[in-house]
């Protein structure tokens, strides 16, 4: 179950994937005394658990800086002089509610222009609409190549599921587009992640180096999935910076996930967004 594979088939040099194997982190705590490793976990309590383990083993935590993915991206954006304000979930749901209009949740009335939502009893429920948007975002990061892959995949499943899968994607893209039109802030914290991903690539790593000057290694911990936004951030780091990236998957899903990583990394220009057909065709980057 445990194990580490370096230089996996088609994996970039500076990326190492682990299944479990967190002990390695504790070993590194012994040997270093200045913070040159960013320890990143999406679950806040997991950072606390690692800190508790270090305390219990009487190991110094000096070698590590703990953060969640959004925090490290905020620092990149500050260094790049890009805006960092984002709409939170409460406000996002309010925006979605207002774009759906004030009709009851299952009203058969036409949706606002440009916003086509899949049919179904709860198609006008803001929470469900937001769920569709976040699922599409986790799977594609709204990247043009992944959006094309979604359409192709939809074409391969049986009728009428193929149409439903396409409609759900179109709905997610329409909601994301409409949200952008309605706020000057970033639509979500994940949009900030994408913006930081593009900044890292566009500055050829300079924004990253300025934000995290001593970070030689970034360790992503405790993942039960590798979302497209996180993949693209890792991709940009590997392409534009000298940082070494270690990903620790968890024991129940790690074997599966690590076999998926090479394909997930095989998209160009990570962080690029195409919310409409025109953007996808012209290759222009939507401002975000």
């Amino acid at each position, binding site marked *: 179950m445990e194990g580490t594979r370096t230089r996996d088939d088609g994996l970039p040099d500076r990326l190492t994937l682990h299944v479990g194997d967190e002990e390695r982190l504790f070993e590194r705590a012994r040997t270093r005394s200045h913070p040159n490793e960013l320890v990143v976990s999406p*679950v806040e309590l997991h950072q606390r658990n690692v800190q508790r383990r270090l305390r219990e083993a009487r190991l110094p935590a000096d070698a590590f800086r703990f953060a969640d993915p959004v925090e490290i991206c905020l620092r990149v954006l500050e260094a790049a002089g890009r805006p960092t304000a984002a709409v939170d979930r409460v406000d996002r749901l309010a925006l979605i509610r207002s774009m759906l209009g004030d009709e009851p949740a299952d009203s058969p009335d036409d949706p606002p222009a440009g916003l086509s939502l899949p049919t179904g009893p709860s198609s006008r429920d803001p929470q469900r609409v937001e769920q569709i948007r976040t*699922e599409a975002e*986790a*799977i*594609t990061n709204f990247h043009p190549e992944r959006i094309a*892959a979604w359409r192709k995949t939809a074409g391969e*499943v049986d009728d009428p599921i193929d149409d439903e899968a396409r409609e759900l994607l179109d709905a997610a893209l329409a909601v994301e587009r409409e949200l952008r039109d309605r706020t000057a802030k970033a639509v979500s914290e994940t949009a900030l992640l994408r913006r930081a991903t593009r900044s890292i690539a566009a500055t050829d790593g300079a924004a990253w180096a300025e934000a995290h000057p001593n970070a030689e290694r970034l360790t992503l911990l405790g993942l039960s999935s590798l979302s*497209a936004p996180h993949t693209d951030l890792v991709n940009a780091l590997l392409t534009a910076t000298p940082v070494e990236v270690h990903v620790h998957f*968890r*024991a129940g899903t790690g074997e599966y996930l690590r076999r998926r990583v090479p394909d997930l990394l095989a998209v160009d220009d990570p962080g690029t967004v195409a919310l409409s057909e025109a953007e996808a065709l012209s290759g222009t980057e939507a401002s975000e």
Partner: protein
Amino acid sequence: MTGADRLALSATIDAPDVPVIEVASPTRRDEARSAMAAAAGLRDRGVPVRDVAVAVRDLDSYEEPLFRAAIQHEIAPVFWTQLRVTRTRPYALVESVCEALAGDAVDRETLLRPLELRWSPAAASAADPGSAAWPIEPAAVHRAREALPEGARPVSEWTEAIDSSAGVDDRFRRFVGWLDAAPEPEPASVASVLGEAIEGYADRGLPETKAADSPALLDTETDARAVVRVRTLVRQLRHKFADRLAEGTLERSWADAADLARVIATQRPGRREHSNARALDIFEANDLWALDVPYVIAVGLTAEEWPRPSQSALPPEFREAVLRGEGPTGALAPQPAWVGGRDRDQFVDALRTAGDCVVVTRHTRTPSGDDVARSPLLDHVETRRVSEESRRRLVGTDPELPPELRAIVDGDTEGDDG
């Protein structure tokens, strides 16, 4: 990636080499009793409470029975769970102040509700003599409700009613004066009025909770956490109320301010952050990751609760194609949680967390008597099953650890026994 790799998500779990003891109980309530009796039994055999952790896939359905069972065994449980702030007294106080201020007239129940929830003037402003006794004791609030007239009236007229009612003291007058002086609901005034209410509670209400609390101070901890959360909530309320007024989606009213507070409170849950060395840690299974504790008690290993695949808005056939990831589909990021992958991770991590032993518990029937199946995750490990007779002794009046568990505890200290 080939389709066959997809099978890695259902492959046999290579479980760590730690003894797993399985306790099956008839109902959920019995199961909670068995779990807490096991924790108490370990404690009574000299295992420090800190060396035991309880993992539950989803605390919603277990928090209450585990809490009751823990108290029975004189265990103080700390639930590492989302604080349901809307069920706390500080939140109810803020809501009740909004309700007392909403509308043109208010009845005596609504008027007195903040006082029942220990409304007090903030300490700094309470130097005046005669106001030492805050919050008003419940009996006095009760007497006032009996003495005051029925029927709704504007806040300003309640002062008069208080003056002409026997046995309603000056403190009530002061409270009504405070309500009457509240400005119109603008973002800044909403924040300052509710902010005063919460600071008054922090100064005078919280010490009441502490005085009445058990030695482990669990209620005090909950109350203190709630005060912190409600302070943050009031700050957010100021900004969001301003935004909503600018958009024209809310009215300048205390009722709308209360509605918005509820939206913020229910959509932004916070976590308990205090651990307590005298108390038993009870985690949701995801939060156990990376810890190292000798004994783990994993609760709720039934087919219905653990695994429980995530909800998705996408059709199952499409999700399955994304999981297989063949050809160009490989660029799409799959979510193993769709097919219970996260539950696998949490199960393995509960096993990995345990240094000496894992006790897994489950129940076998619903309250209405239907069968509840064993979690398929348990098929991945070899368990030592505790007999029904041993389980009864565990939860009986003269509790006794099952022999399977006793052997491990005693083996820990020296040699083994049977």
